[in-house]
Every structure is written in C-alpha cells, then in structure tokens.
C-alpha cells in the first residue's frame, strides 16, 4: 500500500530542491560561516587557559546560564567555549531555517493551491509532505557534515574529530526535529500563518523551558530538546546518546505528522475555522482597526513572549545575587572599584539590550506589514477608497510605536515582578522600567528605517532585519569579542546609556528621536510618490 501513498516522492523532492537550491545554499553557507569564524576569534582573544578560566567564571552566573546554557567550566577549552557560546544559539537559527522551509512547502503551498495541482498528477497522497521532510533531512545532514568537517579542519587543539562531528550532528538533529515539529503543526493549523506562529512559539517555549530548567530545576531542562543540545557536552563528554534521542523524537513526530496528514482533507486543519461575523464591528471599520485586527494574534503572542522573557531574566536575579555574595573573589572581579553598584545593577544593562532588541522585532514586523499587505494586493482596496497614503503610513507608524512601547513595558514589568520576588529586599520598579524604556528611541529609529525602506526601496524592505541582527551581534557579542567602540556606534542601540550604572543620556535620546522623525518624513514623502505594486 505504501506505493500509492508515496508515489513519485523522489521527483517531488528533486522539484523542491530545484525551487529552493539557492535558498538552502544561502542558509547553509551562512550558518557554517558564522560557526567557523568563532573558534579562531576565541583562540586569539583568550589564548591561555588562565584567560579562559577567568572568562568561564563570568559565564557561571545564573543570568548567563539562562541565556547560553550550562557547560563544563572546569575544563573550559576553546572547544568547550565555542560549544557553550555558539551551539545553542546556532541551533535556534537552524530550527528557524527548518520551520520556514517546511512551512513553505507544506501549508503555504497548500494554501496557495499548488499542492492541489500536484495532487491532481500521479502523486501519492503523502508524497508532498514527505518530500519536504526528506529535502529538509538531507539539507540538515549536509549542514551537519559541512559544519563538522569545517570545525575539525580549523585545526584547533581542543576540537577533535569526535566533538566536531557531534557539534555538526546536533545542529542537523535540531534542524530535523524542528522540521518534523513544523510538519505536525502544518496539519493542526489551517493556514501558513498559524503554522509559523505555532512553530516559532514552540521554539521559544523550548528555549525558555531550558533556561528556567538550567537555572533552577534540572528536570525541566530534560524536557526540552534544546536542553539536550547543551547537555551533550560537545568537546567534553560528547554524549552521543542525546543525539540519538533527538532523532528518535523527530521520527515519532514525523509519524504523527503523517498520520494527521493521512486522516485530514486537503485544505483543512484539525483546528476548524468557525463561522465568523456577518457584520464588521465598529472597531474594524477604519484603517487602524483593520491593521490592528490583522496583527492582533502576532502582537498578543509577542507580548506574552516579552513578558515571559523579562520574567525569566528577572527570576534569576535572586540567584545571581546570592551567587556573587557567596564568593569574595568573584564579587571583586565583577564589582566596580567603588562598589557603588550591586551585582544585579551591573547585569541589568546587558540583559536590557537583549530585551530591547527582542522588543524591536514585533514593531518592525508591524511596520513591514504595510508592504506585505501591498504585495498581497490588499492595500489597493484601501487607497482606492477615501484613505490617503500618508494617513495609511502614519497609521502603521503609530501602531508600531505603541507596539514597541507595550513590548518594552511588558518585558520590564515581567522582569520586575519576577525579580522582586526572587531578590531579597525587592527591586526598584522605577529603576528597571527606566532601564528598559530608555531603549525606546533606538527602537523608534529602527521602525523609521523600516518605514523608509517601505517608502523608498520596498523590494528591499526586509533588509532592515540585517540591521537588527547586526545590532544584536555587536551588542550581545561585543563584550566577548572586544569590538572597537565605533562598531557598536553603527547601531542606534549603541547610543543608549547603560542604565542604571550610567545616567540617562538625554541628548542622545533626543537626537535619535529627531533623526527618526526626519527619516519618517522622507519615508512618507517617498511612499506618497511611488507606484503601488500588485
């Protein structure tokens, strides 16, 4: 019976490979490149074991464990260091790749009617989905080997063949896991947006479960496959059986996806759409109402995510405090000369940068939605009615600002409420909130750049993500790599002062806002002048 279900799966796989060869190549090259530049840089920056041990101690505190996971800091070789700093983070990127590619070939293709076309040909009922999974599995295996060989070929002493193979295999394994997971969600949700939303939310959830588990409850970490990635102790114990676990779970997910795919109708999901409203509510009857309605689920999802992110950082504050107060030597290492600020206060700026850049994603998505809607021929329905283009763009700008404000505020509230509960003597809400909201002008700046691209170079509007990514890299890894100052200053986030250990730089904040307003004016003017595509 298998034959009629999987008929022509080979040809379909080749077809998918043909459609996506450039896309897949770029992902693989990007991920491998990113992985391979790190160990030599670390070897140069931390040449002696003494340097590395000193660095290892700063990585042992709960805030860092929450972010990067646990590691064997007693044997902190370049290999262990690379795995600790990069493996989990890269695994998230590989997961994202799998989610995007699988969704593209399962739900997206189904929603756009392409699967229907294929199904009318002599193609097995389960062929399309399994062809996508096959392509993704091969992609991830290739990625695993290229990464492994590349790492080993760097010739760094502590990075042996076995460790390098496991490193690559864990990346590939994570990719296969998320491919299978997305395939399951593609059966449950009725549309591509939902599939992407569920999959990404699950990815973040697994990350957070691991973070909380690593800091406070060992058992919790074992639930999350992302926890397994760090527990494999690459370049140390090399626990291969965790890779095996990852593969087994992926296989089970694939079987589940196949079962669900086999029992449902084409075009439907397991979660059925209910019949909707016959009339529009008063809320929907304006461009702003429409825009908010379209973004509603995304914004709610991000809002919950930001609160949880803030809360999970906040919840480690108590541990952080006791961790440092337990050791005289440690506190001397991190504390400033005058002892003016507490350990917590010194860690807040770094955590806030991560929070702020994460909080940038949702508002930038809101802004780019203006162009996304245009490409779908939806904007024409608005501007052929009594809605002017400036009004439309300003509506999206305002929504993005409010969005940014909400994201920052919720993260700060989450941080404070969890932090106040865990730290002896509580936390000052004003201090936390100011440290978060100080980043607002930098986010506004990012939004205005997104708007400018929508107005001026719409086809390249997603390039704003490169800038967001750049900001994240230079500010998150800046300390690790000792980048020169100007590298950080190329990002608007580089101008925000490190609250609470520095004072607010009002001038910088105002300059950023004024600059943003200028950019926004150009954005509106250019948007008003160009052809609407469709």
């Amino acid at each position, binding site marked *: 019976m298998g034959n009629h279900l999987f008929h022509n799966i080979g040809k379909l796989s080749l077809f998918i490979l043909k459609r996506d060869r450039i896309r897949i190549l770029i992902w693989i090259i990007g991920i491998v490149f990113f992985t391979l530049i790190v160990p030599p840089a670390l070897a140069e920056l931390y040449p002696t074991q003494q340097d590395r041990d000193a660095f290892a101690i700063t990585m042992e505190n709960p805030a860092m464990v929450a972010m990067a996971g646990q590691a064997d800091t007693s044997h902190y070789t370049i290999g262990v260091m690379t795995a600790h700093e990069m493996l989990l983070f890269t695994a998230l990127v590989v997961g994202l790749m799998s989610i995007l590619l699988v969704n593209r070939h399962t739900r997206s293709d189904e929603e756009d009617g392409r699967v229907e076309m294929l199904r009318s040909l002599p193609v097995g009922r389960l062929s399309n989905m399994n062809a996508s999974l096959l392509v993704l599995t091969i992609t991830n295996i290739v990625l695993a080997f290229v990464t492994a060989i590349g790492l080993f070929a760097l010739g760094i002493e502590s990075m042996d063949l076995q460790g390098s193979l496991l490193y690559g295999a864990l990346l590939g394994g994570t990719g296969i896991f998320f491919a299978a997971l997305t395939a399951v969600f593609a059966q449950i949700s009725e549309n591509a947006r939902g599939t992407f939303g569920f999959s990404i939310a699950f990815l973040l959830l697994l990350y957070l479960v691991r973070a909380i588990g690593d800091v406070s409850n060992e058992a919790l970490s074992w639930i999350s496959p992302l926890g397994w990635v760090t527990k494999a102790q690459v370049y140390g114990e090399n626990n291969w059986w965790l890779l095996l676990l990852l593969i087994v779970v992926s296989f089970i997910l694939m079987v589940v996806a196949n079962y669900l795919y086999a029992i449902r109708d084409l075009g439907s999901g397991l979660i059925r759409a209910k019949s909707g*409203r016959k009339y529009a509510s008063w809320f929907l009857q304006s461009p702003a109402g429409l825009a908010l309605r379209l973004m509603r689920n995304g914004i709610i999802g991000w809002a919950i995510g930001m609160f949880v992110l803030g809360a999970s950082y906040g919840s480690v504050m108590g541990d952080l405090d006791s961790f440092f107060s337990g050791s005289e030597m440690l506190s001397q290492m991190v504390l400033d000369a005058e002892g003016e600020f507490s350990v917590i206060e010194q860690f807040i700026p770094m955590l806030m940068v991560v929070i702020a850049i994460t909080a940038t994603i949702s508002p930038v998505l809101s802004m780019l939605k203006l162009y996304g809607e245009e490409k779908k021929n939806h904007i024409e*329905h608005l*501007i052929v*009615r009594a809605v002017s283009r400036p009004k439309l763009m300003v509506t999206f700008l305002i929504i993005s600002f409010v969005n940014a404000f909400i994201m920052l505020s919720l993260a700060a509230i989450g941080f404070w409420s969890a932090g106040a509960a865990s730290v002896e003597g509580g936390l000052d809400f004003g201090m936390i909130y100011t440290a978060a909201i100080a980043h607002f002008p930098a986010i506004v700046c990012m939004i205005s750049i997104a708007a400018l691209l929508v107005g001026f170079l719409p086809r390249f509007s997603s390039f704003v993500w490169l800038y967001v990514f750049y900001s994240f890299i230079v500010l998150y890894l800046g300390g690790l790599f000792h980048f020169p100052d100007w590298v950080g200053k190329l990002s608007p986030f580089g101008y925000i002062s490190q609250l609470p250990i520095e004072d607010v730089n009002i001038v910088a904040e105002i300059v950023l806002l004024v600059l943003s307003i200028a950019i926004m004016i150009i954005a509106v003017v250019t948007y008003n002048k160009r052809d609407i595509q469709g």
Partner: protein
Amino acid sequence: MAVVQTKNITKRFGAFTALDGVNMELNEGEIYGFIGPNGAGKSTTIRILLGMLKASAGEAQIFGKDVWKDAVEIHKRLAYVPGDVNLWPNLTGGEVIDLFVKLQGGTKNSRREELIERFDLDPSKKCRTYSKGNRQKVALIAAFASEADLYILDEPTSGLDPLMENVFQQCVNEVKAEGKTVLLSSHILSEVEKLCDRVGIIRQGRIIETGTLDELRHLTRTKLVIETKQPVPNIHEFAGIHGISGENRRWSFQVDTEKLDDVMKYISSYGITKLESAPPTLEDLFMRHYEGNDPSGGRRNG
C-alpha cells in the same frame, strides 16, 4: 462635462511601454466598455485613473480633478472592483463589505442586505474559503452598496457563473438608470454589447478604435448564408463581399455593412430560396483588430 478624461497618458515600466498615449473620455451617465486582449493595458490605465500608478506622461482627470493629486477627494465618489480580488483570509466577507463601505465614506444601508441576497453570498464565511467568484461578489456588493457617481469595474465577471452575471448586468443597468457613469473593462464581448453605450478598444497600449456600438458596427460585416434558384455570376468579384465559400447556388460570405443593400439587390434578382443572416458582433470587430489586422481580407467562416 466629461466625468473621466485622459490626455495622452503614457506609462513605462522600465524600458517597457505599457501605455502609449491613451486618450479616453467618459460622459456623465454613460456606460463605457473598455475592451482589449490580455496585456493590452486595461488594468494599467485603470490603476492610473485610481492614483495607484503615476503616469509617466500625460494628464488624467476624474470629476475635473487630477487623479494623482486629488485622489482622496475623487475616491469619495468612486467605486472600484479589481479584476483580481485578493481579500484578507482571516476576515469574513461581511466584515470586508462593511469595512469597504465605511472607508469609502458611506453609511450602512439596506442595499447591503439586498445585494448579499441577490448575489447569494454567505457573509459569515472567512475570505480564505471563498472561490474567485465569491471574492468578486464581495467586491461587487461593496461597490454597488456604496453611493458612488462613478463605477470602475475591471473585468468584474471573469469568475461569475451565468446566473450571477445576469445579476451583475441588472445592477449595472440600475446604476445607469440613476444617471451614474460606469467604466467597464472586459473581454467578454457579449457583456459589453449588452451593457455599453460606447466602447474603446485598446491594443498594445493604444486606443485603436472608439465610438458607439452603432458607429463601430459600420466597421463590421454581416454574415450571410444564401441559396438561390439560379447561379449568381461574378459573385466573387462583387464589391463588399468577403471571405466567400461554397459553390454554385449555395454560398456563405460576409458583407460590409454599408454595402448590404447593394448586395441584397443583386442576389435577389437570381431568386433567393434560403437566407440566413447573423448580425455583426463585436467579436468580429475584435478579431479583425487583433488577428492579422488586415482590412481587405475577411476571415473565413467554415
């Protein structure tokens, strides 16, 4: 006063010239058929009229206002139905109709319910589940439920079934009866013939013919099939007869409409026993312009 007027509008996409000096005039209260093959430039012209695209050269006015600068003012009195109706997959048809009417500046009215009933649409379904025809119905209902003075319809019936096409034609006739102006782009010629007062034919970005249907019929030919008692001599050479086929006493051919009288007089002197005639259709005109475009030789009908 002309409701829509364009003067030499030209639109270039990079090196490609999509419109090359389009002149068009719609008078108040008339239904103007805008016909042409795929890719001729109908939608591009309409998108310029709607202020979505900026003309590379030339001027276009609606209600005497500039289509680019005064777009919002114009749009308050205009209703548009695109050829490809793409809607928000997670909104229902009813929500979209309300939104559209509201954005156009209209108010809720009884026509909405009446139109939903006539077009037989289920407004509680999400747009994701609608077929092309149903999405078109949503746009048509929103357009006819709004109180516009000008209706711009770009191939609005390409997904409708014959029953719904009929409803559509009734709706167009109703707005015409109210003295509204309609620009109907189409390649369904029977529809244009039924509805339009005047037509403009566009091809490769140029208007190649424009006028009332009667005027254009002058350029068309009537198809005749005849049988006579006696053979008709020299029928091949008779002026105004084209595309002749048959033999001896049975012929089928086309006649220039203005030569019809002469031809009939000549043939009837040989004793007509059978006569079938088919009226000139826009289709003939259309084909004459789009095919070889050879004015002397007619098409052969088998």
